[in-house]
């Protein structure tokens, strides 16, 4: 798998195509993945998600932070939770272990820190990293949410790229209404140092990703547990602070619905895409509660 991903980069570098950002015609999987990752682009030619770096053209983004506002509601196998108006949302994503931490402050001031790391999920109480060191908050297992939190992680735009790259030859490219469409099943694997797909019950779930004119995800469609998830992404840009630009492109708005019901509507205010230091070790209490 790792060799495949490397081949994707190298083969297309060798071909050195002129990038047809406005006229998407290619259905070559390697070229589409390469462009989606930002290959062929640069500071003067923004393209894709901006993950590819260095003269070896390697996907080099494994973690990020973001700050957002909006609304969200929990999705579980039992149904949808109440809609939460967010005062603030601070998120950390690590695509290499993989994990996601959402530090949610509701409009009424209530705080909830949700974490998924590999096949473990828990909530941190009081502090980020709660339960890992004596006197520093605590951790409450939330194992029933693992799959839903992983779904949120892998339906981020960068997550979709890494999931497609991991699916490898199982991914397909078509052109629909002039747009490039990538279809692939969520597949566990570790094709790159910067991508480690842990997908749990999502294994095999087909995803359809429609790319915009710059090969960035504009929409993702999937069906899981007989529910239809639709996620749209818009307003792409380098959302890092003005003196900290990295050329990694993320959407300013993410909207997700489940069976037509809004479950996520985020306006991203700021990101740090310079592979920030984030850590999500599983607290011992969570491991014990999970029987592992």
């Amino acid at each position: 798998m790792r060799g495949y991903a490397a081949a994707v980069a190298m083969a297309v570098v060798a071909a050195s195509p002129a990038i047809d950002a406005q006229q998407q015609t290619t259905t070559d999987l390697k070229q589409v993945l390469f462009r989606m990752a930002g290959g062929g682009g640069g500071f003067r030619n923004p393209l894709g998600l901006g993950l590819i770096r260095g003269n070896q053209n390697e996907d080099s983004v494994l973690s990020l932070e973001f700050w957002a506002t909006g609304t969200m509601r929990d999705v579980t196998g039992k149904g949808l939770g109440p809609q939460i108006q967010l005062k603030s949302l601070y998120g950390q994503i690590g695509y290499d272990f993989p994990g996601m931490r959402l530090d949610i402050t509701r409009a009424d001031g209530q705080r909830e820190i949700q974490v998924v790391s590999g096949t473990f999920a828990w909530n941190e109480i009081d502090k980020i990293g709660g339960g890992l060191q004596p006197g520093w908050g605590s951790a409450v297992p939330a194992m029933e949410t693992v799959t839903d939190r992983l779904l949120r992680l892998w339906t981020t735009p960068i997550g979709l790229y890494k999931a497609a790259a991991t699916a490898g030859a199982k991914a397909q490219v078509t052109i629909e209404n002039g747009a490039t469409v990538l279809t692939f099943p969520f597949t566990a694997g570790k094709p790159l140092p910067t991508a480690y797909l842990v997908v749990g019950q999502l294994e095999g779930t087909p995803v359809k990703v429609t790319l915009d004119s710059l090969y960035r995800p504009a929409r993702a469609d999937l069906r899981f547990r007989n529910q239809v998830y639709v996620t749209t992404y818009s307003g792409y840009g380098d959302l890092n602070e003005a003196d900290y630009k990295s050329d990694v492109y993320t959407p300013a708005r993410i909207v997700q619905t489940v069976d037509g019901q809004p479950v996520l509507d985020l306006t991203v205010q700021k990101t740090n895409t310079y592979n920030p230091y984030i850590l999500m070790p599983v607290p011992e209490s969570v491991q014990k509660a999970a029987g592992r």
Partner: protein
Amino acid sequence: MKQRFVISSIGALIAAISLGSTDLAAQFGGGGGVTPAAIKEAQSKPTPKRASGVPDFTGLWVQTRPRGANPPAALDQASGNFTNVLRSRTGTAVDFERDAGVRQRVFPREARPWYRPSQWQQVQFNDVHGHSLQAPDPDFLCMPAGVPRIGIPQEIVQTDRQMIFIYPLHIRRIYIDGREHPPEEQWLGTWFGHSVGRWDGDTLVISSVDFNGLEWLGWPGWFTSPDKKVTERMRRVGNSLTWEAEVTDTLLLQPWKTGPQTRLLNPDPMGEVEEPLPCVERDLQHIVTRERG
């Protein structure tokens, strides 16, 4: 300023590259890459021993070039790009800074020091502000890199009493005469600490304590405390030298390991290490963004 910038950038690149199993940094500007085949060939040679029977690490562990020879051309004349040094998506300088800034932070979870959660914000702050006056990376200020950040020495001089590790602009003394570390009340708090070595078979095990807590473990804000303890393991097999280190610190949830790195003995009996340029910090006050490559 510009000279310092390029040196710093190359150094940082080398630091990132050297996370691999072989230390390409040692070969930079000199003798080609350390390939597995080259390591195998070097290891097929006999390992020199001292009269006492322990391995002799004495030698130049960096490639050199003949006096007066030029380093590899940084500028590719054909393309006009700095492909050989400023490695970026497009080979152009404009993409180098951000590419290097992203790539030098590619540390898989296992390769990062696991700080206690109470320290995470400080690491993040150091990382983001490492090239500003708010949290300057000591290496950027021309301070010694400390241990283990400084890595494998360029040259080693071994006696029965001590080993002298020679690095660009710095040396360390490793006492191998059986002495212990001084008692804690006599510690001085230094960049390289107090180091004693003992032999575990053919492996030199170096214990270092008595640090000042100012040195960082690595580029992205990995700070330390004076409680840091470092154990390095070095083994010479034929003409190869392999180094790895483990750090414990009260700031960390668990010991942090770095390496292994392998270098080959310089085969040139007349090889000379060039005197490095002095490090003079002139940049910090002029840096206007937090991007850094």
